[in-house]
């Protein structure tokens, strides 16, 4: 998304639009008011001293008979100018202090960081007051006071933001390229932290405006004959019982201008941080009537899915990353789903486990697990069924456990929640399950926290958690991707062992054909949200019929790849789930594609033996994939 589009997005929200209008008016007034009403504000009229509000003087007059309303308007210039000067000082000092750790190196950097941390802990207003005393009462002293008082908070923000960016690879790459520290800071780091800094400076300007009014009100800020809103407020307050307007008008001006800065900053922060342009909802619709043949729902079918669609609201209408997936898993069967990122394989798995949350929308003609319809809102019984019969294993074992609770307790929770076991029995079962997944010294390990486990051990403990009930199906989403090859073998072996011992069915999602081949009976190949081929794993290497399946197999080097030949590649890039091509989604990359492929999408057709393929040219003899360049 471009800058301009984001700004437009900010201005289109009601808060953003009104804040921008208000801020524009304040700034305009700051420039124009002294020119338009400067003379009137200075005009002394001894005949009209301390008059209350009237038609001629909307906010009355002061002790010299000057029109207070004009003075408030003219004071906009001074107040805004001084507030901006103080903010500029705070930003500048903050930037210097905040980037110092990067420029000075670790040792001196730590000293600066510590100093800033101490300064942040010191109350800002107190700091401003003491600075005001040091620098003397007056506009310059107040600017220095408020500016320097605001600097530590800003410095801390800059430190945090730059430290995050400085840890990224492109900064390392620039350093390897020989770019100096200052240049790295100016060219690579600051542009990438600019947005939050600008937003915070805007909000800071609102704060400075209020602080300035406060100092002037106390007599520490602007001195006579100069005046700003704080001073006018102070003068007006003396006669508040005679002429309330003299205090209320400058007070209102401070509030309005402060609001304008703060609201604008907030609106921009929201627009740039989290994209909030109201996304268009996916609408629930009845599935298309096309009937792909799936194995009939016999008694041994554990999971039966027909025409599964998963969609998410997007800025340009709903995006549907899963577009009509039909599959079934029998008891004790291991089925693999293979595909590239964006193919919809993980979302399919999540939808089956009922883990897609709002605003995601799951639709299906059928979504049955153990004969229960999972499309309905789950009853207590169904929830218990899912909790004990279906286990889910995620890719990243580091994030799938709660880091603050012991492994054993987390496992035991399943038994207490779904099986109604008491504490001791639940914990015993947890230890037993950890033993079942070959965790050494399970009783001791159960008392440990997730960070004390290695990656492979955590993944096995996660599987152990799935075994707390008596699972009929384990859905494993890239369970070995984050693990090393030798550790990966142990997890795969464990899955195979569970299947052999307990007849558990497994739905294994992976991008790695090798992993699928090792564990699965049957493999489903997904591309752009659809299943394009469904065949026994044993036939994968020799009898795959979809050109994508064949290309995918050929593109991965193995230990027998010819080193003197270029690797076969799939030209082009994976289909964008937000805009799938009209015909076969693979057509733009397919060596067999013709006009028919580009205009109409082939259905997933079953042959007699349970294999399925979605390709108009599935019967053509295998043709080598494009070799060489992409």
């Amino acid at each position, binding site marked *: 998304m471009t800058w301009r589009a984001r700004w437009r997005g900010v201005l289109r929200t009601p808060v953003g639009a009104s804040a921008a209008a208000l801020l524009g008016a304040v700034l305009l007034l700051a420039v124009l008011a002294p020119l338009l009403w400067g003379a009137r504000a200075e005009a002394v009229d001894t005949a009209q001293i301390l008059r209350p509000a009237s038609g001629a003087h909307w906010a009355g007059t002061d002790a010299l008979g000057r029109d207070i309303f004009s003075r408030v308007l003219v004071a906009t210039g001074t107040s805004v100018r001084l507030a901006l000067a103080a903010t500029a000082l705070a930003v500048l000092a903050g930037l210097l202090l905040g980037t110092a750790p990067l420029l000075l190196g670790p040792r001196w950097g730590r000293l600066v960081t510590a100093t800033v941390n101490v300064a942040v802990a010191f109350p800002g207003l107190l700091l401003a007051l003491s600075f005001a005393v040091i620098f003397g009462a007056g506009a310059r002293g107040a600017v220095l006071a408020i500016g320097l008082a605001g600097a530590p908070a800003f410095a801390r923000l800059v430190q945090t933001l730059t430290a995050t960016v400085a840890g990224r690879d492109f900064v390392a790459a620039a350093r390897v*390229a*020989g770019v100096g520290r200052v240049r790295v800071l100016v060219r690579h780091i600051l542009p990438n932290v600019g947005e939050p800094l600008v937003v915070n400076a805007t909000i800071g300007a609102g704060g400075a405006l209020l602080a300035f009014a406060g100092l002037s009100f106390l007599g520490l800020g602007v001195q006579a004959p100069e005046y700003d809103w704080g001073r006018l407020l102070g003068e007006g307050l003396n006669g508040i019982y005679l002429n309330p307007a003299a205090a209320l008008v400058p007070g209102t001006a401070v509030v309005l201008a402060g609001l304008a800065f703060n609201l604008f900053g907030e609106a921009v922060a929201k627009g740039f941080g989290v994209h909030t342009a109201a996304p268009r909802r996916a609408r629930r619709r009845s599935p298309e009537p096309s009937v792909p043949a799936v194995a009939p729902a016999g008694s041994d079918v554990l999971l039966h899915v027909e025409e599964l669609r998963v969609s998410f609201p997007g800025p340009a209408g709903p995006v549907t990353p899963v577009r009509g997936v039909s599959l079934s898993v029998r008891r004790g069967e291991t089925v693999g789903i293979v595909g590239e990122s964006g193919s919809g394989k993980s979302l399919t798995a999540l939808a089956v486990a009922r883990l897609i949350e709002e605003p995601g929308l799951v639709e299906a003609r059928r979504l049955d697990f153990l004969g229960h319809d999972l499309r309905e809102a789950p009853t207590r019984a169904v929830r218990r069924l899912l909790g004990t019969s279906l286990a889910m294993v995620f890719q990243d074992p580091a994030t799938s456990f709660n880091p603050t609770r012991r492994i054993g307790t987390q496992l035991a929770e399943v038994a207490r929640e779904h099986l109604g076991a008491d504490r001791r029995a639940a914990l015993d079962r947890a230890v037993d399950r950890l033993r079942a997944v070959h965790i050494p010294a399970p009783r001791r390990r159960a008392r440990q926290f997730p960070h004390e486990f290695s990656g492979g051990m955590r993944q096995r403990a996660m599987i152990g958690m799935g075994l707390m009930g008596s699972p009929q199906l384990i859905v494993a989403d890239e369970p070995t991707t984050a693990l090393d090859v030798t550790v990966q073998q142990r997890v795969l072996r464990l899955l195979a062992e569970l299947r052999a011992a307990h007849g558990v069915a497994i739905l294994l999602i992976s991008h790695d054909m090798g992993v699928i081949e090792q564990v699965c009976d049957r493999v489903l190949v997904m591309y752009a949200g659809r299943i394009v081929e469904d065949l026994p794993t044993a036939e994968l290497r020799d009898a795959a019929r979809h050109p994508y399946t064949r290309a995918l197999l050929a593109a991965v080097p193995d230990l027998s790849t010819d080193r003197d030949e270029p690797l076969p590649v799939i030209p082009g890039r994976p289909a964008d789930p937000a805009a799938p091509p009209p015909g076969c989604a693979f057509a733009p990359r397919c060596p067999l594609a013709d006009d028919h492929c580009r205009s109409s999408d082939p259905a997933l057709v079953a042959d007699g033996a349970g294999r399925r393929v979605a390709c108009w040219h599935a019967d053509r003899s295998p043709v080598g994939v494009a070799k060489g360049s992409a």
Partner: protein
Amino acid sequence: MSELSFENVSVRFGTGRRALTAVDGVDLTVPSGSVVGLVGESGSGKSSLARAAVGLHPVSGGRILVDGAPLGRDGRVGGRRPLQMVFQDPYSSLDPRMTIGASIAETLPRDAVRGSAARRDEVARLLGLVDVGAERAHMYPGQLSGGQRQRVALARALAGRPDVVIADEITSALDVSIQGTVLNLVRDLQRRLRLSMLFITHDLAVVRYVSDHIAVMYLGRIVEFGPAEQVLRDPRHPYTRELLAAARPGGSAAGPTGASALPAVVADAEPADPHHPPTGCRFHPRCPVGPLVHADRTVCRERDPAAAGHPHRTACHFVTVPPAPPHDPVCHGLAEPPAAATATG
């Protein structure tokens, strides 16, 4: 192109009880114009070695030399940087706020390419070299696919006129259908430009495809080094054999049936903690030829195995010919030390 050598290099992180020796006395040579594949699991120290070489992390012991000249602390020799690196994740290694042309131009040595027109031409030439198309120089990384970004990252590394290129897991963040194009490009460029490369990966099939030599790293040490085909056909270190078994579909030591060819004690051993490396040979707590299986082999617990003198410089007290096939007649000539000579080059 030039030769890169590591002499007894160590890299440490932290101090005191939290200290971690990521690289522990590594000797390794990348001969001029060839590709050395560095294989190992996460935590083996292979990325730390790479980052130390390009000056992103200080070396705490030993020397890194390019053509015999030692690298300074900042990765420079006589004012220039002879090493450039391509990072793992092309989504984070390019500045999102900079056009790809500017990113590449930044790496061009200032004194070698003078004048903005000359620099622009050079950027166009480099983009052409990696098949991206010079007209894309004004685009931002966000407008490119992952594969294209990785090509740009490669062009940026070449822009620094490096003597040696270090590639750190450059295909592991890419989809399989994209991976091939990047590997083809790396091989093609390496052959055309006679690049010396240190190619780091955890994928044996990938390393076999691009490398002339293979070094296997385990817990901060190189445990085996030799010509690629020989190491893969005739692995001598038990750890190399384990890696190979895991990479070979079907033929794995730990088959899908749950029946493991390895003894149960070995199969169930947990990976070592790099913060508390084992004494002696670092592989002994999970080694199928070590004290776990042969109780009399206590030497593994007590002494570090020496690499010199063994085929493939294998750092193991009990270097053996693998118990099972595949045997290849070519390898038998290799039982004598010459492999060590290749290594120290």
